[in-house]
Every structure is written in structure tokens, then in C-alpha cells.
């Protein structure tokens, strides 16, 4: 490996050669999380402020000398900073977007310095409802402020400052992550060159909000929820969180992909005329809900769904999305998936049409995939080709000024 450009890049090289060889050549290999403390108060959209906070993040690849090759990954509702690679050789599953981040992958870590963080309000190490409130010495719980996508962008901008990144080569995200990308382009236009908005929407529909409300009600009506103070009661609203995840999961898949995966298959080859698990799809949903309820914080889930519901960048511009995106100066790549009914292709087209009306540079591809909303996480040859082609353009613009070496 060549010499490091900055102290940040030096920190970023977490993979050792012998460890790397345990993994596929297109894997970023072993990674580790880092954290950054912020002591300057952050003013929030709700009117409250956070006096101090921590953000955990991972980086892959090396920051170049003029810090022009940095890419920010924004995560979705239940995501976190562990987007690629492995924490140890025994880890079964790599980071959540490993299919798209690594040497030779669309977000090519031979070219880009990739930053992936756990958003504020999260439950994987960044300050959130399950952190200790320094004012009380107890967990924040329901006292943690409700955050918006704009708040996340502001906190991410501070992380960029701390890492010495003035301008991202690209900000990239799917679903709720795509909303953060759109918000970056609108409210911090001078700080990114490219925006990649995947399987996203300019605002939630009534149906989207309705599903979120059912999920919230499931959590809040769990007797172990204790108005969000379950930590003080040494318990967890597992049942509610399980239901919330089950309903969420249904909206991430398509009717077709559920049909393909489970059909009407039974766990045991006969009906038992009862209400216990019989169909494979029931078993799958229960399993998904159960594992999620053990690893995700209920208050964070509530907060994330609220951030989704509140997201509406056009609201700041007389409900005119064209005026909103007119603020942007970056180029855009918008990607949707044919069977995504949570944020259907028509929602991505709203973004594209607004960008076209505003005269912005934008490309749009609607990828044929049977996997519904989840498609943005799953390997797909056309998705990979389009994504790689766009990132090739992003990279070409970084290297152009210094091409004469």
C-alpha cells in the first residue's frame, strides 16, 4: 500500500495484509469502528439542542491529498455505520452494503475514501435514546429529541469538518438514506459534487405514514414500553418491536418475492387447525421480528420513523419541489426498482422531474428487480452496472485536474 496522505487516511487503513487474504479480493476485509466526540451544541429542528454528542463511523479506502475523493454513505431506517467488511474473521455476515462497497465494486475503495456513520439518534454507538443523558445521569429514553433528516445532515457536515472533508465527491444513500442525500444537495449545496439517490422519495405518502404509525402503535402499546422508560424498568418492549419489524418487513418485500421465497409452504406438512406458526412466511416474519427486537432500540425505531414522516424538503419552499432542488449545484443519479411499492418508481420520478424542471444534471434508471424495496441492498447486474458507470464518472472528475501525473 502506498503512503498515507493525511492522518485521517492513516487511521483508515484498518485491514492488515494477512487478515485481508482471508476475505474475497473484492472485500474491504477487516474493519473497525471509530467514534468522534462533538462538544459544540447542535441546534435541532425541533427547537431543542444537543449540548454534546458522539458519532460512530467506519471508513474504507484512503483519503487523497486534497481530500477530494471522499464519499459519504447515509443509512436507512435500521442501518448503521457497518456498511462493508468484517469485524473479525469469524463474522458470518459482512456490512449491510458490502455488495456495493469494496475494491472493484460500484463504490470502489481503490478510488474512494468511504465514510459510513451511525446517525444521531441511532442505537449502534452514536448518541441516541439509549445513551446516558449527561444532565440526568440516566438513559435519555423518550427524552431524546425527535430528529429530522436536516438534523442528520447538519451532524454529518460536522463529521466531514472533523475529517477534513470540505466537499464530498458524492453523497450516497438508499431509502431514508436517499432522503439524506437529497437534503444534503438542497441545504449544503457547496459541499457535494454528486448525489446518488436510490429507492427514495421526496416525501412520504399517507400510506407510508400509516404503516409507520402501525409500527409505532405496536411498540407503544407493548406493556413493557413504559412510555419509553423501559431501560429504567430493566426490560424491553420486545413484543412491540417484533410486530413493528414484521409489518415493516412486509413493506420491504414484494408480493412476488414473498411468493417465490415461501409460497404457501407449510413448516410441517399438514394443517393443524390452530393459530401457531404454520406457514413458512409466518415463521420467517417471526424470526425477523425476533432477531430485530434483540438488537434494535425501540425509542430509536420510533425516532427513525418520525424522521421519515417529517421529511419534506419542499415544505421549506412553498411546497414546491422544483424550487427546493433548484438550490442544488451537484449532479444527480436517481435509481428506483420496478417492484418497490414502499417508495415506488413514480416517487423517484417525482425527484427526477423536479430536477429536470430545475435544469439540473440528472440521470435516472429504473432497475428491473423482483425484490421490492429491499432491492437496493441486493446484488443485481444492471443495478451494479448503472451504479458503477455513475461512480466511474464521479471518479473521472476527481482525477481530471491531476491527470497529468
Amino acid at each position, binding site marked *: 500500500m502506498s503512503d498515507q496522505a493525511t492522518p485521517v487516511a492513516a487511521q483508515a487503513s484498518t485491514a492488515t495484509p494477512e487478515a485481508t487474504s482471508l476475505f474475497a479480493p473484492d472485500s474491504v476485509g477487516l474493519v473497525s469502528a471509530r467514534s468522534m466526540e462533538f462538544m459544540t451544541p447542535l441546534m435541532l429542528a425541533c427547537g431543542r439542542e444537543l449540548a454534546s454528542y458522539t458519532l460512530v463511523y467506519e471508513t474504507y479506502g484512503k483519503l487523497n491529498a486534497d481530500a477530494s475523493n471522499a464519499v459519504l454513505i447515509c443509512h436507512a431506517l435500521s442501518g448503521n455505520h457497518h456498511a462493508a467488511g468484517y469485524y473479525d474473521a469469524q463474522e458470518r455476515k459482512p456490512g449491510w452494503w458490502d455488495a456495493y462497497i469494496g475494491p472493484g465494486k460500484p463504490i470502489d475503495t481503490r478510488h474512494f475514501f468511504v465514510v459510513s456513520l451511525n446517525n444521531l439518534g441511532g442505537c449502534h454507538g452514536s448518541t441516541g435514546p439509549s445513551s446516558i443523558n449527561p444532565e440526568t445521569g440516566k438513559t435519555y429514553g423518550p427524552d431524546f429529541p425527535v430528529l429530522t433528516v436536516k438534523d442528520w445532515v447538519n451532524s454529518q457536515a460536522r463529521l466531514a469538518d472533523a475529517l477534513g472533508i470540505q466537499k464530498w465527491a458524492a453523497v450516497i444513500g438508499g431509502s431514508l438514506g436517499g432522503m439524506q442525500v437529497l437534503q444534503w444537495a438542497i441545504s449544503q449545496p457547496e459541499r457535494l459534487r454528486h448525489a446518488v439517490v436510490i429507492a427514495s422519495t421526496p416525501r412520504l405518502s399517507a400510506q407510508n405514514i400509516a404503516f409507520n404509525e402501525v409500527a409505532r402503535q405496536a411498540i407503544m402499546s407493548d406493556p413493557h414500553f413504559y412510555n419509553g422508560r423501559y431501560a429504567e424498568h430493566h426490560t424491553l418492549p420486545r413484543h412491540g418491536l417484533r410486530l413493528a419489524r414484521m409489518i415493516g418487513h412486509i413493506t420491504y418485500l414484494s408480493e412476488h418475492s414473498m411468493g417465490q421465497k415461501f409460497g404457501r409452504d407449510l413448516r410441517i406438512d399438514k394443517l393443524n387447525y390452530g393459530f401457531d406458526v404454520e406457514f413458512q412466511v409466518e415463521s420467517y416474519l417471526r424470526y425477523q421480528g425476533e432477531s430485530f427486537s434483540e438488537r434494535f432500540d425501540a425509542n430509536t425505531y420510533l425516532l427513525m420513523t418520525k424522521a421519515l414522516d417529517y421529511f419534506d424538503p419542499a415544505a421549506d419552499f412553498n411546497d414546491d419541489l422544483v424550487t427546493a432542488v433548484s438550490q442544488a449545484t451537484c449532479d444527480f443519479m436517481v435509481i428506483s426498482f420496478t417492484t418497490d411499492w414502499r417508495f415506488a418508481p413514480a416517487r423517484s420520478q417525482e425527484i427526477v422531474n423536479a430536477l*429536470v424542471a430545475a435544469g439540473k444534471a440528472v440521470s435516472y434508471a429504473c432497475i428491473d428487480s423482483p425484490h421490492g424495496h429491499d432491492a437496493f441492498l441486493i446484488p443485481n447486474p444492471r443495478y451494479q*452496472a448503472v451504479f458503477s458507470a455513475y461512480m466511474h464518472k464521479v471518479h473521472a472528475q476527481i482525477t481530471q485536474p491531476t491527470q497529468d501525473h
Partner: protein
Amino acid sequence: MRADLTLIADWIEPQARVLDLGCGEGELLAYLQQARQIHGYGLEIDAEKITTCIRRGVNVIEQDLDDGLNNFRDASYDVVIMSQALQALLRPDQMLDEMLRVGRECIVTFPNFAWWRCRLHLALKGRMPVSRSLPHQWYNTPNIHLTTFKDFEALCTQKSLKILARAVGNSAHQTHWTSHLWPNFFGEVAIYRISR
């Protein structure tokens, strides 16, 4: 670049706002961006061609032209181009209206079905013409609305559209003096520049 595209490029003003319907691999837009500093978008439905456009830095939007141009505002472009796609649309007449709603003028190219070789093929063999510019069989051709110089001009007259310029080409992208003399017989590819 294809000769018909070179000819089209000559008709585009510097810094024009251009929409290229069925932009293929984006070679015309890439050329116009570089040579004329135009601002524009290409519309395309072929997955691989879209990827090529993106890779070469052409703004491309995946969109089926048969769904119309509802997402584009009135008079928002200087030129709307459609190269070798009109004959493959469900309603070419409605598309012309749409193109001239969105753009100040439009440039259209299509294979001339009255080209002498087509005529000869049909006259002598009694079968649907298959040629360099029309390589498909009748049952699998995307060209469901083939037309001729004369038919196209009749439609323009009916719609009171102005023909600003007309050019002829062949599939090898050369022009021959005979095709200027009698385009509907000798012209293999028709190239029109029209406005309201």
C-alpha cells in the same frame, strides 16, 4: 459520428437546451455538450445504452416514449430531437405534437419506406422489404409505423407544421445527388427540421 447526427449537430445553436428522444448511447448529446456546450437530457429505454450514456457523462432518463412527455414543461427546450424512433412509436402524430409543445423546434429522422429499393423489393418479390436500414422481419420489427417523405409532409401540412429544412441520407450516411433530385424515390433516410 454517424453522418445524419453530424448533419443534425449543424442545426443546433451553441448553449441550446436540447432533448434527445431515443438517445441511444448518447453520442449526439456527448458531441453537442463538448462542441456546442448545450444543456440537455436523453430519453432511452434500453438498459445497456442507458449505462453507456451514464458512463460517458450524458444525462439520460429512463423513460418509455409511448408514455408521452408529460413530465416536461411547455416550451422548455430549444430543440427536441428524435432520430430513427418515430416509426417505432404507437402514435407518431401525437408525439410530434408533444415534441412541439415541449420544444421550439424539432428534428426528426426516419427510414423512407418509399425508397426505390423498398419499392423494388415489394414490387418484384411481393414481400415486406428487408434492407440495411430496415433489417427486421414483418413479425418482429419495432418499426410499426413506417412512413415516407410524402406521407410525413402530408402529416405536417395537416397539422400546419412548418418544414424548416429537409435532408436525405442513406444507411451508410452518404448523400447522392439523385436523392436530392427525387428524395421520396432515392432517399433512404429522411431528416426533417420542423416547427409550429
